[in-house]
């Protein structure tokens, strides 16, 4: 790690101020991606602005057909929350699949969504449920928020404060974990929402995406078999030493079918 300044702020406002006056400052919530990056000297922020403990970023509430989760809420809290389990059990299930117990007790939903790792789990749920990412400046629809590999709609100094999920009729997540890292090799979040069935895919491509051809097929028939022949371009998938594009495309289809089967 390079030498840096660590600042634990007492309010969101203070955090925003720190970011504004220090262009090389970085937010720290759970640190599950940032800290390993720092340890390897792959990043050199001037300041770490710790927002992990801010009460205004914590908490889980269900009200009027929505489930709201504070940005600094830890994966373990989501995985075990009775409120989440009642409103969107698939989301609690997904949170319980992230990393390992140590990661789940430190990592936060806001950190995961802000980082937008192409293989992390939360983006699939946020996009699959058509959630709203709320920041200290505005509200961003999931469809506008995720912009590919580690890219998001967040602007400089913008801080995620909470994620607001519309409660779906039903939702399910199916994940095939990467054998080494445990991240998603392919993870598919399927949700029956007011606007139809949404199918969001993480891990397989360069960023989380909606499999719109599958969604269209499901409009006609809600059965898992409906996506059997639906086009999925393997050329759009990632390929590396662990898996070919074809394998990842296959996993997307298999995981999608398994998620859809769970919807019934």
């Amino acid at each position: 790690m390079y030498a840096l300044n660590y600042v634990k702020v007492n309010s969101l406002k203070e955090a925003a101020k720190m970011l504004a006056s220090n262009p090389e400052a970085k937010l720290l919530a759970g640190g599950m991606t940032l800290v390993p990056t720092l340890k390897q000297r792959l990043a050199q922020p001037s300041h770490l602005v710790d927002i992990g403990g801010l009460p205004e970023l914590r908490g889980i509430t269900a009200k009027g057909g929505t489930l709201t989760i504070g940005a600094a809420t830890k994966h373990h809290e989501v995985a075990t929350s009775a409120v989440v389990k009642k409103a969107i059990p698939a989301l609690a299930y997904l949170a319980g699949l992230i990393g390992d117990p140590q990661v789940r007790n430190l990592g936060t939903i806001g950190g995961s969504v802000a980082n937008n790792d192409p293989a992390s789990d939360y983006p699939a749920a946020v996009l699959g449920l058509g959630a709203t990412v709320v920041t200290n400046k505005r509200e961003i629809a999931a469809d506008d928020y995720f912009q590919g590999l580690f890219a998001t709609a967040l602007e400089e100094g913008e801080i995620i404060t909470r994620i607001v999920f519309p409660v779906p009729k039903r939702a399910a997540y199916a994940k095939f974990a990467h054998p080494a890292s445990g991240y998603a090799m392919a993870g598919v979040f399927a949700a029956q929402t007011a606007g139809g069935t949404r199918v969001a895919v993480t891990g397989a491509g360069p960023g989380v995406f909606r499999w719109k051809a599958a969604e269209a097929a499901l409009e006609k028939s809600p059965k898992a078999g409906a996506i059997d022949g639906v086009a999925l371009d393997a050329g759009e998938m990632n390929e590396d030493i662990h898996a070919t594009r074809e394998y990842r495309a296959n996993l997307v289809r298999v995981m999608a079918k398994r998620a859809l089967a769970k919807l019934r």
Partner: protein
Amino acid sequence: MSASAHKIHAPAMRVEDARLVTGGGKFAADWNMRGQLHAQFVRSDRAHAEIVSVNAETARKHPGVKGIFTGADAVRVGYIKAPHSLAFAGINGMKARAPERPVLAHGKVRFVGEALALVVAESAAAAADAAELIEVEYRDLPAVVSPEGALANGAPQLHEGVVPGNLALETEAGDAAAVEAAFANAAHITRLKLEVTRVAPNPMEPRACLVKHDPADESYLFHVCTQGITTLRKQLSAYTAVPEDRIHFEVRDVGGGFGQRTPVYPEYCALMIAAKETGRPVRWVSTRSEGFVSDAHGRGNIIDGALALDRDARFLAMRLDWINDMGAYLSPASPGHIRNTTFCMTGVYRIPALYAHYRVPLTNTTPVSSYRGAGRPDIAYVVERLVSQAAAELDIDAAELRRRNFIPPEAFPYKTPTGSTYEYADLPGLLDKALRLADWKGFSKRRARSKKLGKLRGLGISTVIENTGAGQAAKDEVELELDARGTVIVYTVSKAQGHSHETTLAMIVADALGLPLERVEVRQCAPGKQQLQGNHTGGSRTTVGAGSVCHLAGLKLIEHGRSLAALDLGVEPSQVEYAAGVFHTEGSKRKIRLGDLAKKGAVSVVAEGKFGSTFPNGCHIVEVEIDPETGATEIATYSTVDDCGKVINHTVVEGQLHGGIAQGAGQVFGEHIIYDPDTGQMLTGSFMDYCMPRAGMLRGVNTEEHPTASKVSPLGVKGVGESGCTASLPAVANAVVDALRPLGAGHLDMPMTPAKLWHAVCAARKGGN
């Protein structure tokens, strides 16, 4: 075994457990010295290049920096000849071509991660900062990372003039003519080309080393991860010409070794230069990332194998053509994993004719060394894959083909065609027990049930034997020291890295002396007792060697005590009886306790022994279930029957087996070091990409023992540390291949990842089978 030792041992706690599970262990990085400096190595970021210049001017001026050392310093002090033990003769009297390896690379770098400069500073952060300021100018050279590629014509040459054709050694074993004749008359020949992949052993504790130089007598004190000080001391001395009696150690706990913590590493010698020239102790703690590229790798063998059978499916001959990748330099422990493949080449079978040919290339990769089993799992993998493949080709039950070709019990001691003498093995008994335990006959029903659930079920078996014990040391010595409280301290120069020596060796001594376990304390590699001779812990040899000597030492202490007690009692020693820590003589009520003998000062005895190889053997049977939609494999059941001779502690033996089995299965399913073929960069340099096995992979092991006592040592034990790995590597692979066989799929190389298996399923289905 005395009832006392077992009673106290029960149920499953080891002597060392309380310390280790409560964070009380002291590992290499836990040592600190007043005035210590912190070390940071600068490592090559390319696979093959000339070093044009190393400019450390700016780095030297960085605040806190106390010294910077480069290859020029390594050459100046003469630390350039890495020891190696590839000492056996090659074909036509060829001798191993051993390149020099300055402890900091000089002139050239030959693999990514090779250390070429060392910075020492007042803080770790200052050393790391300064290391980044060192400018290295390289002239890139083409790299070769594949061992077959390294042997090809026109391949980039790693060590011009010293290792022509990158061929460090070409050697052979067995009788080529006899094998050729047998193949000519064979009714069936099974052929397989196999790869035993390159892996990173990855002990839990990263490497660390703290060195202090004492100018008064030019000696060095090391706190370092080690599998035993004797081998490390010898190799440090060989590398640096510092006499062995000037190299001292203080070590406590070691968090895993698997062979990787045995040898000397260039980094340790570079730290010696820094400690001497700065006059300050120097401390280095490796990161995991450094460990991936600079700790010795394991396995890395490619084998072309053929097994010839007669009309009755009896084995006639086996021919193996090996390519043993050694990486960029010969590691100090490099011969083990080649040599061991000859010792047990015939496996558990009567194969009248054997021939193996070895080519040992150097490549632009991290050096390869001994790793759990050191060649034993490799040869078991080759033989057992060939046998299961032959069974499939001939449509003979895999267990039946094995039984038909076993060395029969009456043929022991059995001299193998490659010169080993197996002491004894009850192979039919072992097999019968394992087949029952695994319900071999019920497999087809279970396969049908899996099929209904859409899964492919496979059955794998291995019957293996391996050489354990022996060792390079002239003898194993153990000292017992008895104090006035009647406590016996056991001193040994072997070193557990998780092996439970503090429990097992204490039980052996406690049993010999008839004492409760808490009266015996084991101290390994203790300061002041480092003149004792003995083998390091490796090659499944500590219980066979040091353990047997512990037993002898216990008996010697009784004899010594008997003469002391006789003086006291005024009788002849022969009139003194001993039991449970007390001497007495008939007709006298006086009792002399062990501790009484030490009232005027500790009583000490040193015992020694030198024992040959023991040959533990076992049968492992595995069932796997593959999800053809994803290629994911689960181990459904795992059954083992092992003969490791007399068992001292059943829990410890089971623990060794479990760890070994998981390590073998982990390699079959995922562990694999991959280099980019063009750039020579390591693509699996972190746990994000290097697939370590998880505990959930192996959810249960049904274990039964089938002990037959060894006569090699007075204890009757055989080694067990590597047995699990030796047997699991082929058994698990056989099970996976068997699961896909009904689809028409053939041999698959490890790692058998979900992606690879899914492609194999697709290819087989497309093939119309």
